[in-house]
């Protein structure tokens, strides 16, 4: 009986531990930054610090906490995933983040990318189409105290006209086309990062830039992402 009781106590303690940011998680983040991100060529110190700060294990499902800092995407339910840490860092670096910028994110997902962006960018606007994910992300970001993130539950196709134009737009899920309103809401000289490729296959990260009224696209790196729900 005593053994069972002590096992239950240990289990409760374990459950408590995984809900907080421990030294072990900090160490894992440091390892993640050094081995997965810096090693692949992301050197922007602000981005690296943001990746060191945001506790990724708060953004993954409880049964996947042990894999939170692994080098890959993880399923978060509803057929969606949280992106690979390197990809989050890479996309953030590509848009030249600064405190004076305004960024729109299409596809909040777990809220992790928005949390990373909020460390180094002034205002973040993020739209999630799946109501359940939106509610979970809103709740999570509020609890963690992220103040400069505005969330909306809706169709990413239309962007967020009230706050447009944006210095950058990050689309976190692969799409088969770029919604015209998003191009319109991108500032002249602004950057949009979007993964492409048919859903579930290996995808490529594309940088879309608006220059002198023309729109150019450029392949950045191959990437695997959550598929973009049509209409978003």
């Amino acid at each position, binding site marked *: 009986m005593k053994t069972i009781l002590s096992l239950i106590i240990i289990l409760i303690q374990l459950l408590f531990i995984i809900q907080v940011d421990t030294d072990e998680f900090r160490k894992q983040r440091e390892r993640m930054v050094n081995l997965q991100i810096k090693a692949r060529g992301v050197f922007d110190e602000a981005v690296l610090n943001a990746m060191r700060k945001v506790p990724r294990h708060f953004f993954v499902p409880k049964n996947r906490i042990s894999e939170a800092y692994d080098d*890959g995407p993880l399923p978060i339910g*509803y057929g969606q995933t949280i992106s690979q840490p390197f990809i989050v860092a890479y996309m953030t670096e590509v848009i030249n983040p600064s405190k004076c910028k305004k960024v729109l994110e299409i596809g909040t997902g777990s809220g992790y990318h928005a949390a990373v962006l909020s460390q180094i960018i002034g205002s973040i606007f993020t739209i999630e*189409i799946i109501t359940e994910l939106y509610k979970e992300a809103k709740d999570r970001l509020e609890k963690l105290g992220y103040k400069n993130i505005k969330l909306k539950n809706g169709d990413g196709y239309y962007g967020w006209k009230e706050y447009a134009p944006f210095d950058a737009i990050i689309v976190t899920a692969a799409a088969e086309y770029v919604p015209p309103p998003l191009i319109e809401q991108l500032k002249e000289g602004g950057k949009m990062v979007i993964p492409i490729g048919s859903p*579930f296959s290996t*995808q490529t990260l594309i940088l879309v830039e608006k220059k002198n009224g023309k729109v150019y696209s450029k392949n950045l790196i191959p990437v695997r992402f959550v598929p973009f729900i049509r*209409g*978003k």
Partner: protein
Amino acid sequence: MKNKLNFIEVILFFISAIVISNQIALMQFFSYQQWYHFASVIISMALIGFGISGLIIKWLQKNIHTEFYRVIDWILIIAAFSFAISLLANQFIIGSFDSFLIFFDLSEAIKFFLTIINFTVTFTLLALVIGLSFSSYPQSIGRLYFWNLFGSALGGIVVVILLGILLPQQILVLNGLIISFLLLIRVFAFGFENLSKVLFLFITIIINLILLIKPIELSPSQFKSISRLKNLPDFKIEYQKTTSYGIVEKISSGLLRYSPGLSLNYTGKIPNVMAILVNGDIAGYALPSSSEVDTSFLRNSTLFLPYTLKEFRDVLILNPLCGIELNRALNGKIKNIYATELNPEIFNFLKQQFGRLKQPNLELFRTEPRNFIEKSKQRFDLIYHPVIEPVGLISGLYSIQEKFLLTKEAFQKIYERLNDNGYFSISCYLDNPPRTFLRVLNLLLSIKNENGEDLSSNQLIAINNWNVITFVLKKGIFSQDEISTIKNFCDSNQFDFLIRPNAIVTVPVFNSIFDNQTLELINSLLIKEEKVKKNYLFEISPPSDDKPYFSNFLKVTNLKSYLQQISLRTLTYSEVGYFLIWVSFCLILIIAFLLLSFGYIKARLTGRMKLEVLIYFALIGIAFMLIELSLIQKFILIFTTDIFSISFVISSLLISSGLGSLFTSKISNITFIRFLIFIVIFLYGLMLIIFSNFWVEILISFNSTIKFMLSLLLVFPLGIMMGMPFPLGIKIFSSKEVNAVPFAWAVNGSFSVIGSIGAVILLINFGFKLTFMFALILYLLCGLSFLFRKNH
């Protein structure tokens, strides 16, 4: 006694029909929940059931036969009950496994294993009834065997019809109900000796009835299109209908739009569409039929390129994607549009949407595109293939699916159906590492002209936006005017003219999406440097009718470097279908091994005898399944869908091989005569291989009834001969040692199970001809083992 025998005959007829119908309904069930019908796994489940039943009969032999009817009644009641229970267990206890997550979530692999066990229970119970009937009435084996075969054949046909009326999960419980009502009739006719049976029977009927009237909701994987669409806030299923071709659903949402290949400088609106799904996967999109809907956005896509080249008289659209590609064509200048659609529901929907069209003239054909191309003698000015793998399809999971429209033979036929100076247009999404569009390019480059020579480099061009590439192949040389038109189209939409006539690959200006290595790769393919294709990490050679697996890019020889590039976690995002078959193979192997070990331990035979039985029955077990699965692959091309092909091949092989077993008793005891059976199988099979292109082409060209009859004529001789080695082996081995029979049964069952999934692996890697040849060699080895025994 006679009445009771009649009852057994009736039961045998229905049970045999239900075994087949259960298999095919389960295939449809998995097609909806997962990405694949898992035919080989389901056939294995049935075979495992038969194997286990054999062991049970052997184990309980004495007790069972003395109380035959009491035992049969109970088995039937439990079997009827198991249909409902296995469905409920799958839904609420085990839970639907997710093939997408199997590779990095052990619990999903366990669920998969439990699912196999769960559905095997029903097959085992049904097999027990068949096995018990045979072993209890050996004197009436001829009649019983007839009803067994007749039932199996009819089951395969009826289930295809039923799939057009009921959902697969309804068919499963209907099977339970049929058994229950048969028992009910028996209650009235003969009476049950105790009330508990009747009570249990009524409970079974009630549960099955409830599940028939209110079917359990299928729970597709969270990654399937239907599940992802369900997450949309205003998701609504407007319409759901089950057809023999799959479950058709029309989904509306104010958030659905479709526009592949759209220009980045397009600023207009993209209207909402309705998504049409078949078995939970998106089959296409439909714009509202209202004339107020502006469809001009469809012009601002790379896919519109062929329509800009000239005014067309006859245009064939190979897959109108439920209407959206007809809308695109209507933006061009065309006199006659022809389109193909196999699914009757989508076909009727298209007729409703576009039926009133006066100009241009639209003719819809209810057929599958490859079949249409083979049958039609008409020629076209443009043959249009929409973007490959419309949104919702997952290339990796489809890597084991046969695509007979994307093979060398299909592309050659398409070219032959073009008028002089006609065009063939095909588009695909760009992927990374580049695979899909390189394979399409290779397919186009595999086309030969009328003299059997390679096409001129002035006949192919390609343009791209940021994620789609559109190829246009001309049956003639591109003129300067055409090149100017293409240039203007590209400039106005900010597309890049990637491949120009004379095999010139240009560096894109607007969409810098290709690195130098990819551009060099495209160039080397255009100038046909075979070495480059061979050295490439992925298999990008054009698929053929022999190996029609367009989406399987895996080179087994490069597996190590492939796994290094694509980690185990990201495997789920790539060629997962191929690996899924290996997982199934491993799981089935464990079960087969357990069965075999049990049989081996229980067999009271000498070591030499065991070895001889093992070799003989293992060879015929594997060979039979290799031939069955190979034929299923080939007949998909003839019967247009996998379910039709599976149903036909299983039923026809069952009847013919059953007839073959009946003839066995009339075969002479002379060893050489027996050896001849194997020689005939080998030679007939060899003929099928050598003339496969010929008979396939002939069969495709006929209408359904003649096609069916001729296919039967083709399969029957082989099936009859293939039905002989098993009873022949039993006769020979049992004459020496009566205990050889159960062991032979276990060996044959276990190796058939291995053979059924092994066949899929062989087919993907080596194709139809080699797999079939391998099976024939196994039969030949069996025959030689006869001679060897004699000499020895």
